[in-house]
């Protein structure tokens, strides 16, 4: 446990902050999960609660608390790895201890691995615990549905991979910039950009198909809805805007009364079905972990070449 003790002595505030945030959010998530699941124990009884049948089972009773906890988890996904990763190199460079540590270590690369590895392990344990609890919370909030893409990026494996990428990217930025506060500010900007990029890229990992059955419902968890069009009686597809105009015209022609349903254009929802979430997750995780490896390589290259001023 020497490595763990050394890591804590070098970064007590970072590790303390990460532990407080991750474990606090994990406890809050698990408590809410068990509270919601306990409500469902009465299902099947004569006076079963409303939560047993509706999609938004806990919107009125737990909605606010779940939303706040999930918002905290979303922020911690990026905030915790930055607070752990950025100071690893910037503190050594700013406090000029790198001038001693680097010449003393046989190889800078080996020194970097020994400095990063304990923090990476601590981060994975803490973030992994939070990700598991956030996964349970998301599933408990929608007890009657396959949650599919709901809260993607803020639970389970996607949370851990994003955090791992931000941790390594924070180390690399710290190595390049060499100062902690600017390093943190730039990393925060990078995390906003990364979050926006991964959100925009999500529909691109698989091609969209026509959704059917309950997956076409606008509200509720499950599939990733990417667009809507209208299908005419002859099978041609038109845009959503054209379809709405045509529907309105048909109503007006019919004096405001509902026309023959066969004449009305039918709405077609496009997206990725909930059961294909695993494929999307695997592809995204591979890309994110690949980017983390590239960032790690960049950090190593900078540390090898950098002057320890």
């Amino acid at each position, binding site marked *: 446990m020497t490595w763990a003790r050394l890591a804590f002595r070098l970064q007590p505030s970072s590790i303390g902050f990460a532990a407080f945030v991750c474990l606090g959010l994990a406890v809050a998530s698990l408590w809410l999960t068990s509270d919601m699941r306990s409500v469902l124990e009465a299902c099947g009884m004569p006076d079963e609660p409303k939560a047993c049948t509706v999609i938004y089972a806990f919107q009125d009773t737990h909605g606010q608390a779940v939303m706040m906890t999930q918002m905290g988890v979303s922020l911690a996904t990026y905030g915790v790895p930055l*607070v752990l990763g950025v100071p690893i190199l910037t503190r050594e460079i700013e406090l000029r201890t790198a001038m001693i540590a680097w010449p003393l270590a046989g190889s800078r690369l080996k020194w970097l691995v020994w400095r990063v590895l304990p923090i990476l392990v601590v981060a994975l344990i803490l973030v992994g615990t939070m990700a598991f609890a956030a996964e349970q919370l998301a599933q408990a909030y929608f007890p009657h549905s396959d949650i599919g893409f709901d809260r993607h990026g803020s639970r389970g494996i996607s949370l851990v991979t994003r955090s791992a990428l931000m941790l390594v990217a924070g180390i690399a930025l710290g190595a390049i910039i060499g100062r902690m*506060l600017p390093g943190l500010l730039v990393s925060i900007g990078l995390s906003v950009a990364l979050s926006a990029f991964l959100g925009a890229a999500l529909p691109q990992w698989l091609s969209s198909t026509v959704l059917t059955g309950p997956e076409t419902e606008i509200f509720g968890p499950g599939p990733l809805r990417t667009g809507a069009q209208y299908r005419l009686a002859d099978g041609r597809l038109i845009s959503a805007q054209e379809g709405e105009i045509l529907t309105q015209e048909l109503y007006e022609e019919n004096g405001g009364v509902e026309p023959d349903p066969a004449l009305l254009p039918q709405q077609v929802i496009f997206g990725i079905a909930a059961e294909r979430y695993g494929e999307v997750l695997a592809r995204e995780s591979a890309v994110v972990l690949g980017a983390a490896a590239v960032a790690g390589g960049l950090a190593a290259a900078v540390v090898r070449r950098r002057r320890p001023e």
Partner: protein
Amino acid sequence: MPTPVRIAWRLQRWELGLLVASGVALTAVALVLPSLGEAGIGDQRMVVLLLTLAGPVLFGSALGIGVVAAEVERGTARISWALARSRLRWLWIRSWPIALIGVLVAIPLGAATARLMDLTSPSDIFMPQMRGPMVALHFLVALAMAVLVGAAIRHVLPGLLVAIALTTALLIGTTLALQPWLRDQAVLVPFAERSSDAVIALIEHAHALPAADGGWTLTEPQCASQVECMTAYEALTPVMRIVPGEAYWTLLAIEGAIAAAVVTLAMAATVGIIRRWGPR
């Protein structure tokens, strides 16, 4: 360039450079978005507004923590405090250029987000914390709190985390404390007569009956079944209790007074701390 500004730039050029660059970029985006029509109203608008809310706290804290805590951590406070005529003067010279640059960045940003809100959805609840001079006030509060926390904790990273948490709690606390005042300012407006005038806050949706004086009286019908309730509500007028946009300037004056008090107290406490403590 005046000497204090030059010193501030040389000591915190990264942080100040990032502040100016991100402030200018955000202002430019806020100015461009209304011209994009529908495309400028969606998520991009929300991202700009959220960054306008979080940015001043983040940059104010990052810059403020560098004033005392970074000097102590690097060991340069020992030299600069010994060389300065007084520690009070040193603190003033280190702080005012940062405050000035921050305000010069925040004022145009606040004006740009106000314009963005007014042009894209004027009848929305316009979130006073994300527009106008309040953006600059938030920056100053965050700066003063971070300088104080940095003087007390004397370590950059823990100080930064504590300063962000304290400032956020303070700003949320102020918003919550002003809720009773906002409720007093609220007026009842029938939902159907809702105009495109700006609204500071939506207190609640309710049902009302016309009053003898031409106004409205809130009414909550008593009913036992769903059908009975639907019939009862049909006889009532749906209304909103809103705080009209004219109250913005009074709200700004109150928040400005609170911010001035917080900044004054934080700086006085900082002076008290750095006068007594010897640099490590």
